[in-house]
């Protein structure tokens, strides 16, 4: 089993090109990275919107908003 092109560090260094494993799999790796990146933004936006909406709902109930604003100046809050 050998995941990379390197089998021996001795010899002519000018013969050594890429040294990472799985040379030749760059395009699939880029596709995975692209999906990971776009997917992260999608999940993040969904998560943030859900959280903000839940907080807003809670703050609209009773005097929760007034309490939260009053707590802003409470030094023990941090």
């Amino acid at each position, binding site marked *: 089993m050998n995941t990379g*092109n390197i089998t021996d560090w001795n010899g*002519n*260094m*000018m*013969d*050594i*090109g*890429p*040294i*990472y494993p799985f*040379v*030749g799999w*760059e*395009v699939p*790796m*880029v596709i995975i*990275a*692209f999906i*990971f*990146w776009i997917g*992260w*933004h999608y999940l*993040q*936006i969904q998560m*943030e*919107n859900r*959280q*903000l*909406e839940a*907080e*807003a709902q809670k*703050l*609209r109930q009773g005097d929760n*908003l007034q309490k*939260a*604003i009053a*707590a*802003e100046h409470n030094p023990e*809050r*941090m």
Partner: protein
Amino acid sequence: MSDGITALQVLFTETYYWITIVMMFLIHVGFCTYEVGVSRRKSHLATLLKNTMVIPTVGVSFYLFGWWFYSSMVNGPGITGGLVTAHFAEPWNELMGAHMGGKPVNPNLTPADTFLWARLNGVFFGAFLLFSWTTASIVSGSIIERVKSGAFWLIAVMLGSVTWIIDAAWGWHPAGWMVQLLGYHDAYASGVVHAIAGGTCLAVLINLGPRIGKFRSDGSPRNIPPQNVWLVCIGLFLIYTGFWGFYAACNIPIYDVQPGDGVFWSATNIYLQATTLSAITFNFIMSLCGGLMAGYIVSKADAYWTFSGGLAGVIACSAGNDLYHPIQAMLIAAVIVVIIYKLHYWQEKRFKIDDAVGAVAVHGYAGFLGVVAVGFVLWGYPASPDALLGHATPWARVTPWGQFAGAIIMFWVLGFIPGYVLSWILKQFNLLRVPREVELAGLDYHVFETMVQEDQEIQTVLKEARLAPAE
């Protein structure tokens, strides 16, 4: 790497850029520190996280496509030519990973490609990525306490991995079309980093609107002072420190600037035009001094604006700091800092723009005016060493109109317009601004609520433990 001198040149350049990346990281640390200091206690954590996550969001997108834009879009495309082939910057290319510079696997690469790019691709990518984080961070501070983080990160990707790097290809590349046709000269990025970020900032602020309570019912602005002035000033000090690395990264440290007629090694600016690190050291210091002194006087010794004045002074001179005399740099910095300070408060009163950190003025207007100033002070200079790059017909020289057109392209065309369009779309989908209740309670409301609940639980457990008989 068989030729000793060439090998040393490449290895020194690699090491030099690697060190600039470490130094420039301080800019991001400084921006985070500064932003948290400006924000109110109820939004500290969200503010910190918002700017920290610029690192991965812009980092990954810059790897996937941003770096390729810089080398491939120097002609527009469609203005002075088509897309330029840049295999080394394609994310699937072997040179976008660990490589020893020997025999290429990819048939599109030559041994000359691998020899040069194996050691320089990663560090050049890193240096440009750090510039990208800076552009995004500039926007981050001005929109604190009411923007949704997800919206900001999309704006950061647009600015950091698309628009700014395209402007760098156009006006900050030795063969960029703006350099060739307009004689655009912007050695340390007054326009290509700061003006574009300021333009985007202004556009987003218009769509986002002011913080609740910023303006009275009669429309006059309230001052919302920084929560922690110490943190703000330390943050700005860190940005100054990182800015030295920024300047260093705008230079090629060792390059033969006299090919074909003997060898003459010199540092060059980003356009491969000969300069010295001494020259930029003089000018960085004197423009910082001019900015600090003007900021102190015009703001009546306000610490926040004195520090910001220092930063704006450097930004205002950056376009020409490879060539200015140090006293010219000091005076240009001082004059522009006074103007941008006035502009900040004018836009706040006149247009109700709530820019929490003054980024539009400090980066946008100072950068814009700095680019314009070069047109007058360096009028007639070659914008880049066209003959060195093998062009028999000289390219355009520096002129006031060429620089003015360049400043418009940076601030308005690539900064404001894309920023306005994207933030407007986000606003239509209710993705731009947090709900009013959350803004009032603070973006860290959920964190505090959880902390309070957990604390109450612990107190209850402790109380029960004290009341219970000892076993």
